[in-house]
């Protein structure tokens, strides 16, 4: 009976197995990688390899509010059009994707991205102080190095994937390493 349930009941994320194997994996072996959702498909095949990697565009150019606000924010379609009204992309696949973008702008349709990094509702995470802190640690370091602390080497990812568990233990370990506050109310407020 249990075996049956184990196998058939779908878990929170569509990965192999039911809920139970993942709960075991998480609590007993601390295997975190199995818990992360694989890189989801996005409405546009936007490539960080091209933009952040080859073109070396600063993270904050598109994620405009990351140094100022709670959220990093995804750019408005219009911001993409700043460049893509001129740049149509190289290769058929890229041209097709850019066309999708231009169509969205023309029709004033928003793009619905699938969120990759998500924290539960009872956690407050504010980007601004984290960026400020790491920038003070090493003022010479580029912004992308700071972002990479949690988001990994995004410029090598064709599809963005979560690389850290971003669970409470993960946050607390890092807060301890850097002498950051670990009171409950630091995040749960």
């Amino acid at each position: 009976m249990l075996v049956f349930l184990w196998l058939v009941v779908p878990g929170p994320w569509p990965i192999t197995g039911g809920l139970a194997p993942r709960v075991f994996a998480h609590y007993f072996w601390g295997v975190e990688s199995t818990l992360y959702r694989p890189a989801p498909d996005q409405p546009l095949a936007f490539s960080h390899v091209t933009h952040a990697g080859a073109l070396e565009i600063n993270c904050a150019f598109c994620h405009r509010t990351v140094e100022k606000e709670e959220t990093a924010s995804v750019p408005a379609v219009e911001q993409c059009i700043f460049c893509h009204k001129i740049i149509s992309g190289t290769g058929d696949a890229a041209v097709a994707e850019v066309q999708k973008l231009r169509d969205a702008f023309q029709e004033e349709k928003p793009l619905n991205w699938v969120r990759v990094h998500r924290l539960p509702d009872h956690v407050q995470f504010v980007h601004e102080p984290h960026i400020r802190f790491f920038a003070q640690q090493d003022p010479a370091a580029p912004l992308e190095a700071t972002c990479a602390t949690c988001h990994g080497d995004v410029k090598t990812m064709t599809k963005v994937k979560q690389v850290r568990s971003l669970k409470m233990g993960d946050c607390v370990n890092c807060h301890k390493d850097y002498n950051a506050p670990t009171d409950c109310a630091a995040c749960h407020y």
Partner: protein
Amino acid sequence: MGVTRRRFLTMAGVSAMGAVIFGGCRVPDREVLIQSPARLPEDLVTGIDNWYASTCHQCPAGCGILVRVMEGRAKKIEGNPDHPLNHDPVLHMSKTCARGQAGVQLLYHPDRIQGPMRRDRATGELLPISWEEARAELVGRLRELRDRGASDTVLVVTEPLRGHLGLLAREFVKAYGGQHMAFEALEETVLREAVKRVFDQDRLPDLDLANAEYVISFGSGFLETWLSPVRYGVAYGHLRQGREAKRGYFVQVEPRLSATGANADDWVYVKPGMEGLLALSMAYVIVSQGLGDQEASRLLTRGQGAQYLAAYRPQDVAGAIGTTPEKIEELALDFAAKRPSLAIGGGSAAAHTNGLFNLTAIYSLNYLVGSVGQRGGILFNPAPPVAGLPVAEGRVPFDRWQELTGRLASGKPRPVNLVVFRGANPVHSLPQALGFADALKNVPFIVSFSTMMDETAAMADLILPEHTYLEDWGDDLPEPGPGYEVVSYQQPVVRPFHNTHSFGDELIMVAKELGGSLAQAMPWNSFKEVLQAGARKLFELNRGSVTAPDFDSFWRGVLQRGGWWDTARRGLARPLPKPLPVREDPQFTAGEYHLLPFASISLTEGRGAALPWLQATPDPMTTAVWQTWAEISLEDARKLGVSEGDFLEITSSNGTSLEAPAYPNPAAPPGIIAMPLGQGHSSLGRYAENRGVNTFMLLQPATEKETKALAWAATRVTVRNTGRRSRISKFEGSVRVEALHEVEIVRVTKG
């Protein structure tokens, strides 16, 4: 393990249940959605709000507002603490009314017209079209009519327009050769004419309630919807509590206890239409006892003194007025003694066949106590700072609508081939007996610029939805103003949510496409350009609240402040008193009961009915919401055998009839049925449709004798108990008083 039937069913059941339970653990898709807006809002900073100054357009007062905008969405409307019309000069705060607050619901209304549409008259079907097609159609028809020499058969119907939009409409109509008529359901024609006759003024005056000692108001619901209620509300607060050890006294004279009357120290009943006679009788008392200003008394009575007013001795006219001689004397003596005192009139006092007589008599009283042009009295407004800027473009009295209906119905003397409606809903707000809606069907082509599908838009062939006032440019000259020069500015605080255009822009585009003299008369590219050209004239005056070294800084300055004003430029007129008018009595049709319609404090005459916040705003007197009711006296209710919620069939003297639940009110005088206006929409979005009844339908198309304005309080009705009943939804009585433990119950016993 053998799978028995029983075991198989158990396993199937358990796994299905598990799937349901754990399926619910999945994070819903909307939680992992992160949206890129199409446009990059220049002001988008997550979590940080922007406040834009603009002008309210929910009623004709024209208060200054601040709109809180977050992430490109308007969230909240507050008063602009800088704006001269609705600010509190002492507390440095600002106010808005419920109607102003509800502006955001207009912006986000689910039934807003989302883009231009063309109606197939045969099937009544609406088909979406593009703005280019729609404009081409309108331009084609206008061009064809002009080429045929029939440009005078084109009619533009708007609300009374002020500021540059009025100027634009005037230019357009003049250059094209059409006609412009502004529709105002509860028109102020009579008040304007009275102000002109009594004070020689073209603009309505400001009422200095804040500094008065004694205020007597005849029928004007200045704490409800009359003229500029937010300004009056603030001033009223100062009248009562703004001064140390001094509380202004306030008397309301009217035939129905209104919310304004409920705030008064003394509420005086007067028979409908007899307000002017009461004013004359008060004048008699003041003049005969020598309590009035000598010069004013002489001029008001043609030098004859009390002799001129001998016919109005309180003991002779009190019966006709519906009060006692002692009351009249008391009012007159108080009015003369407690200076500065102020007499104002409007609302139902103006809406009788003798409305002009009523108002001239009432406003003339101010001369007797020296309150004209004085602190605590009537203060005048100066002419607009830029010459030629209209304050009420196209306003016409009711008889012109009667005339138009005849012209529409008969096609004589000239037919009407095209009507453009903007911001006016005459199909709802003209008396049904007039037959306007039926006559309008004879017009071959009707264009509507309405944001919502109102009754008039529902008859249109071409629907060109305009922006709401939160998405559009504009300016306004508040009427009545605050006693000095003011120009308010309205700016778009959000990007347009739907495929809508600005009415001003469209007029300019149509003129351009029509070409010729019309294009020359309107050389601008957009309405914003017109506004800026106008603002440049203010900039060149180099005085007032905003001055700047260059025009760009000036323009930013006025947008930031919400407008431009110059407190040094006041209306300084010192008019001379004219002889008091001679008694005129109101005329009514036959009918047992007098019908007193009143503007709903939230829906006004119907424009607010589309907004659920306003529908749910309780009427202050009955606490009723979302419906139309009929206030009736306890005596009449007993006579008809009705109690609260019993449906009355109310039949007008012209035969139209409708049904509304009775609300027996201990404060209602016998013989009077009072009904709110604003409901009974056959079309105005989901929150307004088929709700309550349209009180306008009952009105007799009677006019005020001289100004020809609609005498909307001059209708008589008969009333019958239908025997049906339904509960009136209201707050009052929804919790029994005994259940409110903090309320001490006081029993009132006789003797």
